[in-house]
């Protein structure tokens, strides 16, 4: 029962809304909890036991840390244990076997068949953040286990996040705000926008991406480049579209969830891109890994010493020491694969290099008399960032690091421009109509994003339109989803990409 399915949108969500609204205000959060657990049971079956265990562990740990701060590390390790074992055991076992088999012929670690509970990476981070916030005395430990259980299992956020902070979401979840027509309309608007992005663009591009990535040996560098761009767009449309549905669901209940995307493809640098893409994951790592590591005694001392010798290189050292664990964790958080670790370290290298090269690039700009605030220079920066992101996503989607490297190499060794017009692109599962539709939908998304980037509140603008015009617009989007959404005969249902992380 993913968020874009009829089951969720037509049955589950309305049922939860009716039950919520009928309940007295102070008990409404119990309805959300009940529906959260039912939702989780529907998607994970008996694996629900893991989220229950995590909730009990987090609850008791919170109470303990509030009294004795020294237990933080122990409690975090206890909390992470399930995630570490279920998600990473086979990765470490396989690599351990590989290393040991160099020396002896034995393979001491047995690989195990494990099913990962959906959302474990998301709710574990939310729970860890809750414990660290208690440690930092930002919030008190929650005394009502039901409230904590709801925080970790709120059904719109359980599959793909956003990763929430208890201090912010707690207040929202337990307020028991009524569902009003205004909230229903606002939430539905956002949900339909998410469906538009996911079903018109992301799910349609899935065919092309799958075809090329599964049989990359059969395609030249041009097609691989197209697939890498297509995957980047698919991932954004899918993940941000899903976040629109999630945030829209929250809006219906009067619950403001944190935004996870802020028009990332307008970013001028890779660092900026990561402040706009999967924002809640980035800010989690920034707050709970980057700052604590950068400000940890020995690291602080090392950065200070480097700073005394040379201010710039001191800053680079401080940033690099803090960034390395962040990007290593970011890579490995996505899954137990070398390609994900490579993906994380790719961004570590890019961001560290950009800080290290800052004086050099400023000198270059002065030398060539480049106007850094000109529109053309901004366009160049946006294009450069997009290119770097696409390269990262090529490795991210590839079935392993070796395949990623082979695909990347093909872009340079087998680049054949004629693939753009010789019909190859029409053999990838999409016809002319599909390309036109994707192009049209992307144009709509682009202009709306551009308006928002320029400071317009598009949602408010739409709300202020005359009634007939406003509803024509809503019906157009609904109709576009019904008529052109990627489903029905010939289309395989497309899973939510980030639910697998």
């Amino acid at each position, binding site marked *: 029962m993913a968020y874009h399915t009829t089951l969720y949108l037509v049955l589950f969500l309305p049922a939860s809304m009716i039950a919520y609204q009928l309940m007295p205000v102070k008990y409404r959060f119990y309805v959300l909890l009940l529906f959260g657990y039912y939702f989780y049971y529907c998607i994970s079956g008996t694996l629900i036991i893991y989220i229950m265990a995590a909730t009990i562990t987090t609850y008791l740990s919170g109470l303990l840390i509030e009294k004795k701060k020294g237990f933080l590390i122990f409690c975090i390790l206890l909390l992470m244990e399930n995630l570490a074992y279920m998600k990473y055991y086979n990765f470490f076992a396989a690599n351990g076997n590989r290393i040991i088999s160099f020396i002896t012929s034995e393979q001491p670690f047995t690989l195990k068949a494990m099913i990962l509970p959906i959302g474990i990476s998301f709710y574990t981070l939310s729970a860890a953040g809750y414990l660290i916030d208690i440690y930092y005395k*930002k919030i008190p430990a929650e005394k009502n286990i039901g409230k904590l259980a709801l925080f970790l299992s709120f059904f719109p956020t359980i599959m793909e996040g956003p990763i929430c902070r208890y201090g912010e979401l707690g207040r929202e979840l337990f307020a028991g705000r009524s569902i009003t027509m205004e909230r229903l309309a606002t939430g539905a608007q956002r949900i339909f926008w998410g469906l538009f992005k996911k079903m018109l663009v992301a799910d349609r591009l899935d065919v092309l991406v799958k075809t090329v990535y599964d049989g990359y040996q059969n395609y030249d560098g041009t097609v691989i480049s197209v697939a890498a761009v297509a995957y980047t767009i698919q991932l954004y449309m899918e993940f941000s579209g899903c976040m629109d549905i999630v945030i829209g669901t929250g809006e219906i209940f009067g619950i403001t969830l944190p935004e996870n995307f802020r028009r990332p493809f307008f970013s001028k640098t890779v*660092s900026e891109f990561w402040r706009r893409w999967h924002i809640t994951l980035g800010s989690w790592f920034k707050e709970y890994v980057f700052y604590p590591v950068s400000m940890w005694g020995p690291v602080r001392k090392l950065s200070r010493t480097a*700073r005394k010798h040379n201010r710039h290189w001191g800053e680079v050292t401080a940033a690099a020491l803090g960034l390395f664990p962040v990007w290593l964790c970011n890579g490995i958080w996505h899954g137990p694969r070398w390609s994900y670790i490579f993906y994380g370290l790719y961004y570590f290298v890019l961001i560290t290099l950009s800080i290290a090269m800052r004086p050099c690039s400023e000198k270059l700009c002065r030398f060539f008399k480049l106007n850094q605030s000109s529109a053309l220079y901004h366009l160049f920066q946006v294009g450069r960032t997009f290119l770097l992101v696409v390269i990262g996503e090529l490795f991210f989607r590839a079935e392993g690091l070796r395949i990623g490297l082979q695909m990347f190499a093909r872009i340079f060794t087998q680049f054949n421009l004629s693939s753009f017009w010789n019909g190859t692109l029409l053999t990838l599962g999409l016809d002319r109509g599909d390309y036109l539709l994707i192009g049209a939908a992307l144009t709509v998304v682009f202009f709306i994003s551009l308006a928002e980037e320029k400071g317009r509140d598009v949602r408010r603008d739409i709300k202020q339109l005359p009634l007939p015009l406003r509803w024509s617009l809503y019906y157009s989007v609904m109709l576009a989803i019904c008529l052109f959404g990627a489903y029905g005969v010939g289309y395989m249902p497309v899973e939510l990409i980030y639910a697998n992380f």
Partner: protein
Amino acid sequence: MKILQELEPDVNYMEEQALIDAHILDSFLILELVAELEDTYHIRISPADIVAENFNSAKALWQMIERLKEER
């Protein structure tokens, strides 16, 4: 104020109230700022202090410095 001006000269620190929320100071600049403030005022800033409320304006920063000086 001088420390802030050195970090990001184009900002009006007398007026600006959203140094963090408006992404004027990124995490690297914050680390630099923390190092400068610690050296100048002989205080110790912990990761728990790095929240928007403490870093959003020059006034908020000064209030944090005063508090940390008292706690020293």
